């Protein structure tokens, strides 16, 4: 059957965008770097790669393994049992994912650091805020919720009929687990483990802030070579190694995630909580601990922004943040930084939602095309924010007018990093979309484009809200690529970058208040996601 023109248009739009702003710039930079003779001979420059890879693997591996160990039981509790407020709690779990790592670092210090809410009275907890333990702790705050949610998705993909059949044949809960829901739930956890491994191995702010050079990941090494050592070709070589090393887990995540979403949900997956089983109490305890950890972190950030350590009066950090001291340190007022943050995130969300919608329709129309498109959309995440930002700067920087118009590159990088996650939100309402609606409209005289707009586009509406808010929130908290693209004292400074600059300038109070402000903005987005009934995945 001839493929309708709209399909090709949608696919072309997505592929062109990704090619123009991710594949081509990165390819040009990396190929250029690989062809540079001097770099290939310079073993000293690349000598930094070994420890960076070791750090990435150690931090990524530890963070992912612990996240799966803790997140799996909590995910089982979320995915298998129904209880009041389950949907809202599920959405709340994604909150850390929407916050910049910097806020998480400060939150961890506010909670367990020497002046922290818990670290102050209990010094034994402070080891969790320095070195590799600190980095892993921050990564876990991200990773565990991701594993929890994906494990829950896996549980919901299991067949309730098969599980009940096992019981009706005399098999107990352990047998039902083995026969029915072990495979999909473990697949969900593995999917979360792979994603969190990639994200943790390529983390940027936690190693810099909590450990320094000795814990630098590959992404930090690329950043240093490209920006601080002015060795873009060497940075490119390292970026190639980064992509080669992390391509396998990234591809495995995309493939496993698509398989998982393709399976379910099967309905009637959630059941009343069987409180008589001690296993249930164990699952519930882990889940409550995860939730309590997240709430404690959020609470510590908000509390410390109002009551800093040793403060004589409340609210000081907010006054500093909104005063002239902060403005002189940032080169713009905190409110202007908030304005930049909101504007860039909104523009990124607009670009992201259009492309994610086009991609979602292109994928749903031809399922065989789904995996290649999903892999293509995941390329910016695999490239890592630093590599993406460097590629955009090198390739598009001169064309858009350099630092004067760097906001364009900021918006593009935020959109590129958000699209793969927006696609997941849109695939859910579009699942099972058949040709019937479009053909009915066409039989009534609608043009192919009119049939698409009238009969099919409205199906995506419920996913739009979640996807839009998701890309917006990710843009709101995006730090690494934006930080790389901006020059010091830029008038395009965003709030996450301001948090880092204020921390580096030793204005912890103002940095804490800026973190709290960012957290409040993210909470507002989260509330909107919950109100829209989204964020199931």
């Amino acid at each position, binding site marked *: 059957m001839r493929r309708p023109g709209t399909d090709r248009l949608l696919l072309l739009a997505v592929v062109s965008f990704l090619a123009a702003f991710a594949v081509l710039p990165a390819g040009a930079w990396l190929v250029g770097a690989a062809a540079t003779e001097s770099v290939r001979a310079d073993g000293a420059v690349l000598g930094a790669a070994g420890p960076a890879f070791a750090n990435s693997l150690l931090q990524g591996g530890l963070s992912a393994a612990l996240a799966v160990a803790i997140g799996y039981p909590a995910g089982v509790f979320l995915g298998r049992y129904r209880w009041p407020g389950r949907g809202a709690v599920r959405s709340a779990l994604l909150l850390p994912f929407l916050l910049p790592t910097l806020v998480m670092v400060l939150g961890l210090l506010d909670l367990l650091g020497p002046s922290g809410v818990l670290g102050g009275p209990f010094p034994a907890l402070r080891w969790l805020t320095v070195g590799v333990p600190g980095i892993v702790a921050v990564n876990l705050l991200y990773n565990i919720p991701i594993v929890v949610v994906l494990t829950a998705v896996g549980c919901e993909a299991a067949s309730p009929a098969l599980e*009940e059949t096992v019981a009706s044949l005399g098999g107990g809960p352990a047998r039902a687990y083995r*026969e029915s829901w072990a495979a999909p739930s473990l697949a969900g956890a593995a999917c979360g483990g792979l994603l969190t491994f990639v994200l943790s191995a390529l983390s940027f702010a936690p190693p810099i802030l909590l450990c320094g050079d000795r814990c630098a990941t590959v992404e930090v090494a690329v950043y240093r070579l490209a920006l601080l050592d002015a060795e873009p070709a060497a940075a490119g070589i390292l970026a190639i190694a980064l992509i080669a090393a992390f391509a396998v887990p990234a591809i495995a995540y995309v493939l496993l995630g698509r398989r998982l979403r393709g399976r379910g949900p099967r309905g009637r997956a959630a*059941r009343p909580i069987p409180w008589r089983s001690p296993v249930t109490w164990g699952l519930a305890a882990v889940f409550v601990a995860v939730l309590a950890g997240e709430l404690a972190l959020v609470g510590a950030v908000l509390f410390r922004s109002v009551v800093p350590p040793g403060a004589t009066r409340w609210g000081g950090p907010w006054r500093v943040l909104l005063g002239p001291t902060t403005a002189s340190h940032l080169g713009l007022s905190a409110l202007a930084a908030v304005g930049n943050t909101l504007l860039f995130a909104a523009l990124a969300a607009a670009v992201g939602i259009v492309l994610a919608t086009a991609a979602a329709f292109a994928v749903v129309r031809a399922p065989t095309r789904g995996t290649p498109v999903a892999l293509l959309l995941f390329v910016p995440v695999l490239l890592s924010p630093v590599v993406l930002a460097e590629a955009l700067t090198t390739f598009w920087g001169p064309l858009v007018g350099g630092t004067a118009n760097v906001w364009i590159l900021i918006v593009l990088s935020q959109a590129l990093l958000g699209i793969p996650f927006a696609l997941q939100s849109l695939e859910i309402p579009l699942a099972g979309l058949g040709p019937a609606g479009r053909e009915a409209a066409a039989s009534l005289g609608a043009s192919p484009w009119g049939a698409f707009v009238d009969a099919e586009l409205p199906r995506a509406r419920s996913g739009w809200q979640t996807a839009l808010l998701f890309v917006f929130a990710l843009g709101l908290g995006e730090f690494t690529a934006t930080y790389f693209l901006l020059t010091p004292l830029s008038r395009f400074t965003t709030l996450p970058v301001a948090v880092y600059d204020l921390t580096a300038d030793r204005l912890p109070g103002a940095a804490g208040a800026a973190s709290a402000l960012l957290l409040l903005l993210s909470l507002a987005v989260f509330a909107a996601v919950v109100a829209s009934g989204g964020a199931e995945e």
Partner: protein
Amino acid sequence: MPLLEVDGLVAGWGRREVLHGISFVLAEGELLTVLGPNGSGKTTLLRAIAGFEPRRAGSVRLDGRTIDDAPPHRRSIGLLFQEPALFPRRTVLENVAYAPLLQRRPEPEIRALVDRLAQLLALSPLLARYPDELSGGERQRVALARSLAARPRLILLDEPFASVDIEIRAGLRAEFRAALRAFGTAAVHVTHDREEALFLGDRLALLFDGRLAAVGAPSEVFGAPGSEQAAAFLGYNLMASPRGTVAVLPEALVPEAPAPGRPHYRVLASARVGASSLSVLEGPAGERIELRGPEPLAVGTEVGLRWEHEVRVPAGAPLNHGAGARGG
């Protein structure tokens, strides 16, 4: 002593109460069919008996002992769904032998049991195949064999023929019935298919809105529907007559020339269906009447109706305005 006693069972999901005090008993080896429309609570009833749906009130007893607090896997109750839910990575043989292996029965006994079931349900040539190599009917036969191999005291059948091709459905029903008889296993079977319910059940129960409307031999329940709702669901036309509302089967209606002062019915559609003809008529109040007769009627014409046989149903709002038996 009855095998199964369901007494005042109340169950539901979420805030919704689906079953409002269901009570019935089932004898050893008996097959009870529960007939009801979609959303009447049929599946919830089975799931509550099997222990998959929490019971809000009432009790369920098996062999005289309450099983209210027993987990599903300790109830000795088999359950068959519309979808057979076979283990996808096990062969037919492994699926059928699953429960006996769980019960650690001796191997010769398992072999004999599987052979017997394979013969009874014509599975012998399929034993080495995997579920995705089977047709819908074959999968359902495997699912029944697997349930029977567990030697449960009772099997619950949740519309097991609904997704089976219509041309093999009748044969499959007969095979199910024979297999249940051969093993002496009692069963509660729920369906919304009238013909299936009347064919399979030793007794028939009607379920509407979570309440049992009638329980008895299929011929008794069909011959004397206790309410307008039951009559309509069993396929009767509800006609008003001087004796009140009566239920008349489509086969019992006879068209005649319209007479002054008597209701007229307009023929909306009429066609030959197999050996007889089926016509749909519209009554004076816009109600629809089904009529089965030897010949199709001319579409658009008006006819009067008389009937040879009627069943009295309890008084309610008259739906149709017939002339009564023999033209009343």
